[in-house]
């Protein structure tokens, strides 16, 4: 359970988030939709401590997150897969995974074993540099690196960015499976609303820094009036 209330963020004079309140229930996928520049990425960066908000509060599993350093937040069990996946290109696949385990102080050997079973393609390529992976494989690596930390909350920023539709579908299904198997709480930020809504339980829509609604995903998908706020770009 992660709850964001009355969150406002500004970069100098530019307001990125304005009094946003969102609740993401435990064990469910909550999609955050919105057009480019709606503040989706800022929202995730604020949760993981990379951006200091002007006001508001964020609590995750009973911990107040505001004011904590990003690495502390990560060690509280909150994994953030940033936009562009954030894999370190100069590292091999295995080094990327090990880094995830080292940061979270979890068992490296067991974690690697687990992720290699989940993502067999990573095992195949474990000695290759991340730079040499395809887009889909990089996303797998980013997910695997996040999961090796045994997180309770997973923040995903545009996992479908730059991927072919089939690969996107594959990734989305993987996310759904991960969530179902481990009781993970997921906040999924997406421009590709259609794919996101397919696997999400709840959805919130951001429009120029304001949250419009947090409702079950199916409802949002059905609400014609909301569509204009998040469609048009990705479809």
């Amino acid at each position, binding site marked *: 359970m992660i709850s964001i209330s009355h969150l406002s963020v500004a970069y100098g004079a530019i307001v990125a988030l304005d009094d946003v309140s969102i609740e993401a229930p435990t064990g469910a996928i909550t999609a955050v939709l919105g057009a480019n520049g709606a503040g989706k990425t800022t929202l995730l960066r604020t949760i993981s401590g990379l951006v200091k908000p002007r006001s508001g509060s964020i609590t995750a599993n009973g911990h107040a997150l505001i004011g904590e350093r990003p690495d502390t937040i990560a060690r509280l069990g909150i994994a953030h897969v940033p936009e562009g996946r954030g894999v370190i*290109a100069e590292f091999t696949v295995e080094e990327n995974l090990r*880094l995830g385990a080292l940061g979270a102080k979890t068992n490296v050997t067991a974690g690697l074993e687990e992720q290699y079973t989940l993502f067999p393609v990573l095992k195949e390529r474990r000695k290759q540099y991340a730079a040499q992976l395809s887009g889909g494989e990089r996303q797998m690596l980013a997910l695997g690196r996040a999961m090796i930390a045994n997180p309770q909350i997973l923040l995903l920023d545009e996992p479908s960015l730059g991927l072919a539709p089939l690969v996107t579908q594959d990734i989305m299904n993987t996310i759904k499976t991960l969530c179902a198997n481990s009781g993970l709480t997921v906040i999924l930020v997406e421009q590709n609303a259609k794919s996101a809504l397919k696997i999400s339980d709840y959805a919130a829509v951001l429009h120029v820094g304001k949250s419009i609604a947090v409702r079950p995903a199916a409802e949002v998908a059905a609400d014609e009036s909301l569509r204009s706020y998040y469609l048009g770009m990705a479809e």
Partner: protein
Amino acid sequence: MIANILTNRIVNDIAGGTAQGVIIGLVALCLVLVWRATRVLNFAQGPMAMFVTYIGMTQMDHHANFWVAAAISVAVGFIFSALTEIVIVKPLYHKAEINPIVVMVGMFTLLEAVASAVWTNIPRYPTAPFSSINFQSEGNPTGLSPLSTFQIGAALAIMTLVAILFNYTSLGLKLRASALAPEVSKLLGIRVGRLLTLGWGIAGAVGAVAGVVISLNPGGLAPNMLDAMFILGFIAAAIGGLDSPLGALVSGIVIGVVMQLINDYWNSNYADMVAVVLLVVVLMLRPQGIFTKNSTRRV
């Protein structure tokens, strides 16, 4: 046969040049370590190393043995460099590129002035535990002395230690990650700030080794002893590519050897400029340096 090789003029030049070159390479290595960790060009590398070398080596005046004095230099080098990062470099991350450069120029001026106030400009000559008389082969001198062998050995040992640390240990993995992708590393729960400080500390310790090794040369221990080495070391680091520790050491040795060959076979007046010419040529052809891999840009 072997004796002929050992006392051959070119072989001697290469050996003597290598002994000079590893020192240039060590200074270059410090610069690379700091640059990789924090994207700061440490202009005060030379004076910082000089300062901690003084602190350690002057203990020999109080009857400390050479190895104890050297160990003190290295330990103080680590602490001093780490503290420098915490106190004056940290506030400048994410600021304009020139800011940390200028701060380190300030540090340069300050440390040399303080050293000269405390220890004066008169050089000191720490007694080396090795002789500087070259090994002989059938009555002829070879290009190496026990001292220069120790200097080359120390440089290679440090290089190996650094390579093992960075490439084969978990700490090394975290250090590299913090340097390459600080934000991602933070998101993975890594205490990046602490690791950057550690990176500076390691560079400081390597710098102290360079300082100790240099202080055994005829120039001895003096406030300005690393100024020229800094310039040559910087050139070596730029030629090798500021991201490549191996490149730093290799280009350091190449510069040392080429200078020595020019001294012997051409004219020593040209040797001073060879490093500059090499730098200009390399930067014109490969602005990122020779050893930096182009393919592995961050994505």
